């Protein structure tokens, strides 16, 4: 019952459309590239300055000058282009990226996203996430539905400092897929072995309708 990390990534990969330029966040979103459907050609952008990101290098072929936004060694492809950070975010802010798939700490029923800090505890910074959610065409969040303690991370309102306000279009969790629509969330799909009742029970946010 419920999806594991790889199943969530596989489900997120179905969001991709042929010809799209896509930015994948750190964590589960990175796994999405392993599940790109056949016949769908997407170009991955890495916000540290690269379009056309390839897979990890073979052992011994790592290049310190070739990393992704997660600081992992990667490779280039025949269509790769490198550019500087101001150009990279010019294309992000300018709406040239079709979709961003990001992780989240919390997401709200109005599409607010929190994924960059826990006051007083954890302070990593937002990196490029604020620019991505503000700029790209479509924002898909991939996250666990609940915390380790079983508390819903899909909320009426975020409790943590926001990364962006009313920016999320779709939420993919271990329990299913939800869309942010006027008035709340709408169930798109339940994960394997998860009922709509399970999904509702695990969600603090407003879920619309009795039916999908």
């Amino acid at each position, binding site marked *: 019952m419920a999806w594991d990390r790889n199943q969530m990534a596989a489900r997120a990969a179905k969001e991709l459309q042929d010809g799209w330029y896509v930015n994948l966040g750190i964590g589960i979103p990175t796994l999405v590239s392993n599940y790109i459907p056949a016949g769908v050609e997407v170009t991955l952008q890495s916000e540290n300055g690269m379009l056309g990101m390839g897979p990890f290098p073979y052992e011994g072929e790592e290049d310190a000058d070739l990393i992704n936004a997660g600081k992992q*060694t990667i490779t280039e492809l025949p269509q790769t282009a*490198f550019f500087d950070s101001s150009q990279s975010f010019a294309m992000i802010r300018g709406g040239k990226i079709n979709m961003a798939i990001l992780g989240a700490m919390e997401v709200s029923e109005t599409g607010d996203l929190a994924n960059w800090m826990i006051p007083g505890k954890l302070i990593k910074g937002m990196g490029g996430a604020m620019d991505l959610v503000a700029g790209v065409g479509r924002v898909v969040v991939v996250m666990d539905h609940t915390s380790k303690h079983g508390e819903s991370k899909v909320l009426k309102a975020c409790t943590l*400092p926001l990364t962006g306000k009313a920016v999320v279009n779709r939420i993919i969790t271990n329990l299913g897929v939800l869309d942010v629509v006027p008035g709340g969330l709408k169930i798109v799909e339940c994960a394997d072995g998860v009922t709509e009742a399970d999904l509702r029970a695990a969600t603090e946010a407003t879920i619309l309708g009795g039916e999908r």
Partner: protein
Amino acid sequence: MKKIYETAAKALDGLLFDGMLIAAGGFGLCGIPELLIAEIKARGTKNLTIASNNAGVDGFGLGQLLENRQVKKMISSYVGENAEFMRQFLAKELEVEFNPQGTLAERMRAGGAGIPGFYTKTGVGTVIAEGKEHKDFDGQTFVLERGLVADLAIVKAWKADPSGNLVFRKTARNFNPPAATCGKACVAEVEEIVPLGALDPDMIHTPGIYVHRLIQGTHEKRIEQRTTRKKAA
């Protein structure tokens, strides 16, 4: 107009002072001006404000200046790799101004381009926009961000010619070009200085006008996350 200096020490002579603002290129440990950072550590210049996307790691890159307590304030987007940073910050020994990564890059570019302020959607509705001027354009709300001008820019390139033209390699380009433009002075460290005329004039990433001093040196180029895949059998 001689721009080439023998050592990082000589290249930084007369440019460092306590309380200054330094813009540094690099993303993570990729493309960081490691030789110039090491020299700034050796000088012990104090109360620095440093605009850099990241703060290095414990013991390498800008992390060394943090450990050496030379940094008063960081202007960064992501500092998750650095335990000492987190400690100093949570203990309120270090100021941090978080900038969204694209806003930081654009602030550097704007500062270098004579643009004192620009509007962006990034961060609207978040703590980042609090206290900043907002303005509506075509029915959407944007926040005013300021161009950033540094007392000194330190950058790392792959190749340079004696006129200061710079070429970067792969993702080691990152913040280096915008950082180079926003310094009242800019010092670049490179892996190789090639003869004048050896660089294709169509393929210069940072024109020499931005670069005041230049050194060549050997770089460690440490890898932060060595991720690989296996060859299929």
